[in-house]
């Protein structure tokens, strides 16, 4: 259970007006939500705040009854490696690691031994349809394939929460649909909570609900399928 209560964030510490405030959201395991909004409204910042990569100026975030806003930077880092999965617009695959190694990276951080990590990473790659390319290098992949690897990496350690920042921003619409389908299938398999920031209505449609971020909070913008 993720509960965001009355979150508030200023542009920077000196600014008077908040970027957004009054952001509240509650998500149960298996639920997903898409966050939309105008450029510059702070969608990515919201994700960063939830992930602890940026500090908040008010409000609380709770995951499974743990108050995340009370964590220090390193405490958050340790929480992230266990409970968070990330899918970025820019993929962020490490070019010098094979696909299997890229996927194994979160497991390494959890101190799993090489063999176990490799086995699990390959299993995960199989579930995104890239089993045959496990030992290939990222530079040989298409954008869609890269994002599938990133999805595998985000889910390999069975996180409680998956944060996706414009996951299809670098993909053409056809590929985007395929990748998103895969992403949400896998998230549902895992029973994870998912928050996706996106510009695309089509993308948003993959989530259970769609919310719009405004400076004063989140408003429901779910489009009936």
């Amino acid at each position: 259970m993720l509960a965001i209560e009355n979150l508030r964030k200023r542009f920077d510490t000196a600014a008077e007006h908040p970027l957004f405030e009054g952001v509240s959201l509650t998500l149960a395991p298996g639920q997903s939500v898409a966050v939309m909004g105008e450029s510059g409204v702070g969608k990515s910042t919201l994700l960063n705040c939830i992930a602890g990569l940026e500090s908040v100026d008010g409000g609380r975030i709770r995951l499974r009854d743990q108050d995340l806003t009370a964590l220090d930077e390193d405490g958050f880092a340790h929480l992230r490696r266990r409970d968070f999965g990330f899918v970025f617009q820019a993929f962020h695959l490490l070019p010098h690691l094979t696909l299997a190694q890229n996927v194994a990276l979160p497991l390494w951080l959890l101190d799993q031994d090489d063999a176990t990590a490799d086995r699990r990473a390959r299993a995960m790659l199989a579930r995104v349809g890239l089993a045959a390319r496990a030992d290939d290098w990222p530079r040989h992949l298409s954008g869609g394939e890269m994002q599938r690897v990133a999805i595998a990496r985000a889910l390999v350690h069975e996180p409680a929460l998956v944060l996706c920042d414009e996951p299809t921003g670098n993909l053409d619409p056809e590929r985007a649909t395929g990748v998103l389908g895969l992403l949400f299938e896998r998230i549902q398999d895992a029973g994870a909570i998912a928050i996706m920031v996106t510009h695309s209505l089509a993308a948003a449609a993959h989530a259970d609900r769609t919310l719009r971020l405004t400076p004063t909070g989140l408003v429901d913008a779910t489009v009936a399928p």
Partner: protein
Amino acid sequence: MSSALRHVFLASLWRRRLATTLSLLAIALGVALGLTVQLIHSAALDEFGRGIRLLNGAADLQALGPRDGFSDALYPMLARSPAVDQASPLLEIEARLPDRDETLKLIGIDLFRVGAVTPALLPMGEDPDERAPASGGQLDALRPDALFLSPAASAHLGLGPGDRLRVQVGTREQTLRIAGGVPGAGVGQRLAVMDIAAAQQTFERIGLITRVDLRLAPGVSRATAQAQLGDRLPPGVALLTPEDASSETLGLSRAYRVNLTMLAAIALLTGGFLVFSTQWLAVVRRRQEFAFLRAIGLDRAELRRGLLAEGGVLGLIGGLLGCLLAYLLTALAFALIGGDLGAGFFRGLAPQVQFEPILTLIYLALGVLAGLGGAWLPAREAARMVPARALRAGDEAEVYRARPRWRTALAALALAALCCLPPPIGGVPVFGYLAVALILTGAILSLPGTTAWAMPRLPAGRSTLWRLARARLTAAPGQTVVAGAGVVASVALAVSMAIMVDSFRGSVDDWLTRLLPADLYLRASDASASGYLDAEAVARVAALPGVAAVRPVRFETLRLREIGGETSGEAGHAMALIARQVRADGGLPLVAGTLQPPTGPSVPTPVWISEAAADRLRLGVGDAVTLPLGEQPHGFQVAGIWRDYARQQGSVVIEIADYRALTNDSRTNDLGLTLTPGTAPEPVMAAIRATLGEQQSEMILPGELRTMVLEVFDRTFLVTYLMEAVAILIGLFGIGTTFAALATSRRKELGILRHLGLRRRQVGTLLATEAALSALVGVAIGLLAGGAIALVLIEVVNRQSFRWSMDLQLPIGPLLIFSLAMILLAAIAARLSGAQAMRQDAVLAVREDW
């Protein structure tokens, strides 16, 4: 984490192989140079120490006097003292070997006494089991012509039992017979042993010994014995512990050793800078990667540890390579130049390369430390980064903001100034070296501030490239720090050494010119060896046609039991005594006082003391001083202080007429000849050879001597030059790798410039301009820092290490050329490495992250 460490961090070293190789090389070179210096010296010192222990044996105290010895009547007196259990008299002679033009350390021993103190010196007949009286073998040890060679001397001279060896005494020769060996001397010591009576007779030293080794009676402390016996010793003879006696030589070589070690340390430091540069750039390039890793849960400490591990591994591998290299270099050095690195402190030793576990570990640790140190700031910077911001592309300029650190820089420089004030610690100018390190630190710290200050003040110019370069450096002065730290360090080192060596060389040259007023110099042997000219030989030379005048010089040593009114640790250490004409000839390079003191019956006899002697005796011009001559105290007055580069231990000059009147010693070591106008030296030299014998004299023209001395000087500083070259090389490596990495990390930025219409060549020019500007700032600061370091080296380090002064000389031309070359090389290095980086399609590079 360990898998991540391996795959994410350490593997990255392999990916940037060129930079890694250069960093490794730099560290390896620094470690190798430092360890080599230490290994050579530790082996030489080991052998020297073994020699000392061998020659001192179990002595508790040693009575030592002037080089030519003291009355042997002292020996029975000491032997019969109740404080003394055993006394062993020795007569040490550097015997000149006329047909080999070298000397051999020869020790006259009392066979019946030496065993109790220095058993290693016991001679052994040809065949120790052969006891038949008919062989006469056992008589040999006492026979007047019997000489026993240590294994090293035997091997070096290629002589064995039954062979003959010619030795020079004065200008005459004596032939000695090799009667056996000195097996106890070990393989590293070249020496010979003969009966003390025979040595006295052969070398015309009847009544003289140079040393009495004492073993004290049980329960008598050294201090007690020194106090009891000291008063009964004549002036000029001192009772020293063997440690004191050996520290004379060790003390002299220590400053030289420390100097070389410091140079090696600076080479290692430069290696550290290179690691810093490459790591910093690696951090910049992997900024997004680190941000991503942080996002998925890597904490700051882990990131820092990962990056430090990269530096540590570089240091470890570089250190291992360096250690390996050091042992190879040491073996090579022993094979080529011997154990004293060309400085001549440890003649007659044949040291062996030995594995030194502790030294090796220390230098390995220093290598690792250089790697860690270089990686420290980049790692800290990486851990400090805000991942959310870094996750977005294009913020590398962030890294190069570099705050000016004027306050820290100024504090370092002020501290450096303060460090020039305290005296040396144990003869080593610790604070001087600290000042050098502080100046270097201050210079590097002032880099960002200087860049930020200087760039806006550069003329704006019309050229787009110039404006771009200027804008870039103004906005990101940190880039200059990264590229320039190595430049500052290497330029400062090179410049300071250049100024110091140039000043030193110039001063030595001037000193030689003034010290050698005669037309031709003649000697029977080196002053410490067994050759000399007697009055009759001098008269014969003076009577030769073409010789207008002769100036005899006599070299001896003095031992002052008290120094500066107190008995210090150095009391009793030998000081050089030079008896020569002063008033008539001048020729002393004075720094204070006069060469023409007033004469008269009530005026005390004048002496001129060297700077080192003035320091040690705490004397100034006009002070009275008592010196022991011929075992009698005599009063003198300091008439002047002169500069002496030849005798670190200090020297005292007196008029030869005064010396002869006080001592009745009429021997001459060096004879300066003034030739009648128009006389060429060659026929005179031929006439002298005909008079004194072909091999019994050495002659040299002042010009040749000057050349020879300067050659020795240059050879001594060869190691210094080598290190300088290494430092410059490392600095250039630094610039090359820095700009290669910069170009790579700025591929996107440069790609945009290509998009905006810049040609590939223009991008190259931009990089070259930036590099030249960075290097300009680095070189300028390096020049200033180098000048300051040179001053510290001349006024503090040299003054305290060697106790001599020198006149500052600035080799402006070479420095200018060197600076321009550095800037040009930086531009070329950046251009080349930039071209390499630009080889990939710029458009592609832009798209990569867009």
